[in-house]
């Protein structure tokens, strides 16, 4: 699947499927636009009329609370109409294919699909089959990508650290199953972060992950040494096939973020987690609720960043005059 499927003939973003192949100016422009949407969340009337009359479908073939809710709020704050479809509500459970589901929803004159699926490439597949005016946002496909999560994480890092040019960032935990980690690594590289580290047990590190431009650690404290940002990942038990960790207790003792391990990082380091967090498994409550934690700021920022992405995609749709 060509990467430029997500760009139009003027190089503007049509779909957001992956951060792979996007340049820094596109990422920066999303983050800058999101900055202005933060203000909307603080107002009494938390709505702007940009997507009035447009219909956004949240097409979640896989369970989600945070991502689906923030996408829904983002679309509603842009004045769009929103339909939420979850796995149990969809006819794919009756044997319909994903593309047929999408074609039926298109026939209802919808404008944008936010897609999550347990199979990598689903959002690409849909994007390559929809009419030109329809927009697709990948809200997580298998182990492949979760670009909006990575962008809201970049927004949160920028909010606390100013820029990426001097930063050391450590991503810790279940890298193997994490589409979030893959998108974060791409985003950090594109934005010019000089040092990205990943850490976890060998069983949860993808082979050749260093080819993505990261330093690989199996010792967590070594990985945290002098970093500005610590990103913890959830252990994705539901995707694990076979015994990848000896026990939850042993995992926590080696890779759980405790106040003690956190002292290896810089004293002003921020702690992030895409959620949902497993207290006592990958993160200690004292850290999750501590003053270095920005986990809830990530959630708040998620709305503004998703508003920015939706507005940019829909704006480009309108600008190219493809709406029929």
């Amino acid at each position: 699947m060509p990467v430029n499927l997500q760009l139009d003939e003027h190089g503007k973003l049509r779909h957001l499927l992956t951060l792979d192949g996007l340049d820094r100016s596109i990422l920066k422009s999303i983050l800058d636009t999101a900055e202005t949407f933060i203000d909307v969340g603080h107002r009494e009337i938390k709505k702007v009329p940009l997507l009035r009359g447009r219909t956004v479908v949240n097409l979640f073939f896989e369970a989600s609370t945070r991502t689906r809710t923030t996408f829904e709020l983002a679309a509603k704050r842009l004045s769009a109409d929103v339909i939420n479809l979850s796995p149990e509500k969809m006819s794919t459970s009756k044997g319909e294919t994903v593309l047929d589901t999408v074609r039926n929803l298109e026939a209802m004159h919808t404008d944008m699909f936010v897609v999550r699926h347990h199979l990598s490439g689903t959002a690409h597949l849909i994007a390559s089959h929809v009419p030109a005016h329809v927009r697709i946002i990948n809200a997580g496909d298998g182990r492949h990508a979760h670009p909006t999560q990575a962008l809201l994480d970049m927004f949160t890092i920028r909010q606390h650290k100013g820029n990426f040019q001097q930063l050391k960032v450590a991503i810790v935990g279940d890298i193997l199953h994490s589409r979030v980690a893959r998108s974060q690594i791409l985003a950090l590289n594109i934005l010019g972060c000089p040092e990205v580290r990943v850490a976890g047990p060998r069983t949860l590190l993808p082979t050749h992950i260093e080819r993505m431009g990261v330093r690989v650690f199996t010792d967590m404290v070594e990985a945290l040494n002098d970093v500005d940002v610590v990103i913890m990942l959830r252990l994705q038990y539901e995707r694990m096939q076979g015994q990848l960790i000896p026990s939850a207790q042993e995992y926590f003792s080696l890779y759980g973020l405790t106040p003690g391990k956190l002292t290896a990082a810089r004293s002003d380091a921020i702690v992030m987690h895409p959620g949902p967090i497993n207290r006592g498994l990958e993160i200690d409550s004292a850290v999750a609720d501590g003053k270095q934690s920005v986990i809830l700021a990530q959630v708040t920022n998620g709305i503004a960043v998703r508003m920015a992405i939706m507005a940019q995609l829909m704006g480009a749709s309108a600008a190219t005059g493809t709406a029929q």
Partner: protein
Amino acid sequence: MTYMLTFSVRICLVLNQNLNTLNSYDFSFLIMKKLPTKQPAAPVPGQTPIPQPEALIRQLQQQIPPAGDLLMIGIHSGGVIIAQRLHKALAIAEPLGMLDINFYRDDFSQVGLQPVIRSSHLPWDFDARNILLVDDILHTGRTVRAAMNALFDYGRPASIRLAVLLDRGGRELPVQPDYLGLLLPLQAQQHIKLIQDQALYFLFRDDPPCR
């Protein structure tokens, strides 16, 4: 017809004598005497002086009545430049507000999001307060429409008045300024833009008519 005559007299006065005080005087008595045989309906670059923003700001400043509780809001970006000057000159006690109208533009479906969007900054609760909206150039009236829509998402002001440095005509909506620096009707292919670098000045451009 009278309307047209008045316009051309105003223009020739402004352009030939550099008078920027149209609102303070009644020129109707001049119509017969001063009307030349042939006057351009709009300025021609290279032949006519382009107005000086600083002079127009002074002109505008004199019209705004002193009011202690006035809340002033500049529309990004040109309006903010003018509002900053007026706010200082009029010694308004309340801090200056700034409004970005990009999320309220009516041309989003045609052109998409603007590349640069600034944050709105309205540092007070303005329910039941009097607002003076400031912009640099008034043209179609669509920006002012968008600004008013935006404001009503923040609160319910007692009143909104409009101060504009330069009115270039060409209105597409029923919007008129309450305070005006200068009326300078331009043709559709003529463009005027406020620029701030070291100095404040208007950039004027006259596109050849499309064939």
